[in-house]
């Protein structure tokens, strides 16, 4: 069964550093997403991406965040200057058009120290 692959599975970074979280969506999917889950809390939408541009973003997704699809396979989330409160599990997801629903990756646990 096709999978969404995320790397790394766990990243520790110092406050103020830039991090890039990487995702390889399912190859024929057209829509790409990032979500995050702070420990013990619900999963929250960050951003959706379609046709090489952001289609929707949440209030969480401020100027510190950016997304990119640098080639035909990768989808990245960059946090420019990490804060302690950015510590969370970050999930990438992809979906085909319409009714197909999402496939989530297994997540990257980001720890900011």
């Amino acid at each position, binding site marked *: 069964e096709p999978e969404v692959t995320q790397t790394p599975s766990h990243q520790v970074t110092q406050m103020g550093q830039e991090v890039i979280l990487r995702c390889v969506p399912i190859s024929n999917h057209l*829509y790409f*997403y990032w*979500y995050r889950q702070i420990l013990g*809390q*619900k*999963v*929250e*939408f960050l951003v*959706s*991406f*379609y046709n090489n541009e952001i*289609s*929707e973003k949440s209030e969480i997704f401020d100027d510190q965040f950016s997304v990119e699809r640098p080639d035909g396979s990768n989808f990245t989330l960059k946090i420019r200057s990490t804060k302690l409160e950015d510590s969370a599990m970050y*999930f990438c997801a992809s*979906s085909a058009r*319409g*009714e197909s*629903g*999402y*496939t*989530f*990756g*297994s*997540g990257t*646990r980001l720890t900011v120290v």
Partner: protein
Amino acid sequence: AQSVTQPDIHITVSEGASLELRCNYSYGATPYLFWYVQSPGQGLQLLLKYFSGDTLVQGIKGFEAEFKRSQSSFNLRKPSVHWSDAAEYFCAVGAIRGAQKLVFGQGTRLTINP
């Protein structure tokens, strides 16, 4: 605005007992509804989804859910739970078309007693 409420934060059932996890949603149109399961430290696995048609949907691992429009509910059920079902369960609602953002509930943590 879309919202999802899972009224039960934590449920404990005995192995072999039946299970029902509640989910209520608020959405302005016909929603897409999902149930995901998350084991500790793991990602989100899709259990089942409802888009249209038969309001009783079957999923993986013996789970089913029933969409009741009149009650704005999409409760998850399993007739007999197994110890391996212990996990966090999330209900989510999404739009029908396009880059459908999912809105998740707070989750219900399921504990299984032996």
